């Protein structure tokens, strides 16, 4: 409480993940502006334009004002939708920003490094020319197709579901009995106009983003791709919170499943629009995700994932009809979900191993995908041991738990370096800086370490005026208020540094533990592969300089982009790849770090910054 008696309320803006504490009575628009969000308000926030529509997901706000009431009625506002300029906070609230806000906001990595895809899909397409029924030829629609296919590709006991027959009728009316039939095995799964190609959709469902790729199933050619923010974020930024949300109230299973299914449908519609085809032509889907995400997508029980020993409900691969998940596609389309390895090591990890061929590489290889949970795989090609683990590295590298941390969006500091004692920063889209994202945090820490602003234990040293006393201890001034996009200083606090130390230590200790378990020396490792969005924008030398990644003297360090997405694409178009994914899931040994008594010691040591301070080897 301050002297005016107004209580402190925390406002959280999702999906961007920005938080601020304001006094009760502050408008959502002002709260948003205070954290540097550019919520559109053409009228300047006086309740005229109606542009600043947001959704209040939880918490209390003032009742709609008279001005607002008019908008609510005429502009078709959904439940809990408000004008940010009029709604005032009355308790801590979570606000969901509209999708337009997100469209340009967050940088979502979609691209992955992919070799030529090998195509042996489980869908065939057939060009067939039929004749219309007549008194002389009264065969059913089905018989016409079956006979034509028997003559073309050989005799099968063709099956068909009613929805495909409905589609058939509509298409022959439009195309005059010439059409394309899609089959999987002996099932007729869908039809399209003549000359159509079979396309498939590969999807990587991440905690933060969902990436989708539309591919030609016969050639593997990518027709379009797009990434969007995972719409589940307002219900929990990290996966544990989201799982708890579902576990506490079983009715939410459907809500969470529908959110991600709708998002996939939206992506499918956008990609098909770009490729000038109908979503009904999607003949096959392949989905990967971490264990939590696939459980939520499929509506699987999650309670057992939240309690030790954290077991998944299903970890083998799944084939089911897309229609059962209400996914837009050809009537009989199949969804393939890659297998997981167990616990939190899910299908996206298998996809990463598949994508880079880590399982059959002749080199001793470490693969890592850094996120709130970081999955690590080590393949020792000499002993043929292959082990994986998952470490809870926390949200620090996604900007969480860091005072001025933000996700990789416009205005985020993504690079930082000193030039002659002056700190230079580069932001995404070259906007005035609003905060620091993961890659910027790693750069900053490496520079602070190199230039003696922190000691080996990560303690800030009062070397010059850039290090000062803040509200909660020492802090390093990154950007002064005059240069920032929101008129406030951007700082890295001692507390932030501790958070980042714990995160980088978890990853480092996880890697070292896998080396120890497999009796692999650091010098034996030949390849260190870093996947994922954060991993792709990361400065590798700086990551080694701060000890996020260990220094491996004979390894080449590679950034391979969204490898999970690449693995999903490979498995989409190839049964051989699906078989390999199954083999990977069987072959990889899951390592429980907690069972290794050395782990906590390695973890404590890895919070330190590695010597020598200013000599980072060339990788």
């Amino acid at each position: 409480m301050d002297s005016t008696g107004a209580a402190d309320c925390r406002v959280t803006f999702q999906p961007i993940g920005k938080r601020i504490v304001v006094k009760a009575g502050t408008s959502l628009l002002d709260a948003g502006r205070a954290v540097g969000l550019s919520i559109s308000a053409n009228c300047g926030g006086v309740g005229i334009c109606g542009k600043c529509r947001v959704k209040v997901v939880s918490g209390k706000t003032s009742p709609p004002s008279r001005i607002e009431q008019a908008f609510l009625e005429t502009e078709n506002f959904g439940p809990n939708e408000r004008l940010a300029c009029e709604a005032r906070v009355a308790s801590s609230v979570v606000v969901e920003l509209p999708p337009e806000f997100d469209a340009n906001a967050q940088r979502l990595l979609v691209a992955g490094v992919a070799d030529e895809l090998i195509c042996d899909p489980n869908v065939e397409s057939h060009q067939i020319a039929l004749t219309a029924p007549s008194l002389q030829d009264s065969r059913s629609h089905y018989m016409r197709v079956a006979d034509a296919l028997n003559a073309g590709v050989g005799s099968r006991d063709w099956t068909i579901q009613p929805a495909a027959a409905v589609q058939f009728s509509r298409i022959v009316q439009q195309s005059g009995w010439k059409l394309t039939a899609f089959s999987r095995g002996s099932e007729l799964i869908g039809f399209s106009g003549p000359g159509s190609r079979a396309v498939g959709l590969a999807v990587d469902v991440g905690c933060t983003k969902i990436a989708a790729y539309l591919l030609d199933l016969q050639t593997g050619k990518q027709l379009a791709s797009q990434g969007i923010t995972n719409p589940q974020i307002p219900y929990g930024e990290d996966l544990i919170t989201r799982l708890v949300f579902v576990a506490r109230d079983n009715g939410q299973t459907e809500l969470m499943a529908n959110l991600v299914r709708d998002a996939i449908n939206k992506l499918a519609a956008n990609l098909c629009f770009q490729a000038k085809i109908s979503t009904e032509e999607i003949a096959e889907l392949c989905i990967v995700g971490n264990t939590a995400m696939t459980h939520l997508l499929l509506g699987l029980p999650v309670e057992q994932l939240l309690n030790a020993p954290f077991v998944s409900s299903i970890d083998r691969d799944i084939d089911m009809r897309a229609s059962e998940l209400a996914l837009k596609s050809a009537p009989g389309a199949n969804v393939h979900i890659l297998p997981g390895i167990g616990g939190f090591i899910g299908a996206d990890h298998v996809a990463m191993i598949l994508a880079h061929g880590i399982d059959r590489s002749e080199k001793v290889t470490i693969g890592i995908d850094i996120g709130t949970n970081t999955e690590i795989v080590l393949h020792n090609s000499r002993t043929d041991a292959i082990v994986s683990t998952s470490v809870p590295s926390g949200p620090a590298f996604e900007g969480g738990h860091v005072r001025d941390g933000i996700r990789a969006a416009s205005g985020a500091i993504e690079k930082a370096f000193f030039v002659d004692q002056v700190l230079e920063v580069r932001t995404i889209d070259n906007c005035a800086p609003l905060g620091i994202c993961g890659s910027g945090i790693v750069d900053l820490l490496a520079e602070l370490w190199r230039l003696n602003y922190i000691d080996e234990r990560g303690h800030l040293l009062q070397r010059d005026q850039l290090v000062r006393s803040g509200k909660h201890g020492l802090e390093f001034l990154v950007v002064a208020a005059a240069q920032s996009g929101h008129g406030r200083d951007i700082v890295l606090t001692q507390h932030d540094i501790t958070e980042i130390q714990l995160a980088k230590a978890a990853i480092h200790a996880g890697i070292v533990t896998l080396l120890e378990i497999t009796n692999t020396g650091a010098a034996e490792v030949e390849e260190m592969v870093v996947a994922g969005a954060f991993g792709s924008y990361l400065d590798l030398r700086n990551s080694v300089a701060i000890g996020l990644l260990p220094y491996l003297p004979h390894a080449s360090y590679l950034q391979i982009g969204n490898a999970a997405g690449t693995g999903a694409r490979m498995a989409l178009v190839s049964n051989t790849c699906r078989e390999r994914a199954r083999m990977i899931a069987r072959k990889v040994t899951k390592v429980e770090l907690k069972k290794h008594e050395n782990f906590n010691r390695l973890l404590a040591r890895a919070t330190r910054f590695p010597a020598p301070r200013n000599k980072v080897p060339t990788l």
Partner: protein
Amino acid sequence: MPSLDAIKDALAELNEDLALQLVKDALAAKTPAFDILQACQDGMTEVGRRFESQDYFVSDLMMSGEIFKQIGALLEPELKASGSRTVGKIVFGTVKGDIHDIGKDIVVNMLKSSNFEVIDLGVDVSPERFVSSLKESGATVLGMSGLLTLAFDSMKSTVQALQAAGLREHVKVMIGGGPVDGSVCAFVGADEWGADAQHAVRLAKNWLVPSSL
């Protein structure tokens, strides 16, 4: 022969290699294990003091705990041979369904360094195991740790199990972990909650060392 002050300082400065070497040298020079332990405890007290004054941070507590654990392993044979001098027994563990142990280890090490005998049951400890350990050891303080919100249910069932076993009146219960606060303490039915390791040590002292009041 290394001075006990040097051991204390090495620990307070979190100098792992030096601290371990000095302890080994001291043992070789026949310094009594209790004196070495006392020096280490003083070092840990200094670490705790620096944490409270915000000169040290969580990562430093982790490091100090790991050094202390290793020194403890070096001293244990000697200490065992000459009998125990602890000031009270505490059963400690991370509750069922949770396996977070970093915070728990920090607290356990801090308690040990304050001369308490701590029976560390590890992680994912069921109410039954807590109860049987309390019965066997006769400990009068129970510490439960948990980071997941679902861990609160386990803490509550453990307190209920204590009641059912007729132990509740004789055992003081403290809880801790990331999201734990006063309302969680009330929900669980614990006596007290602690925000950090120093807090836990103060609670234990209040309960077990009357003179410290």
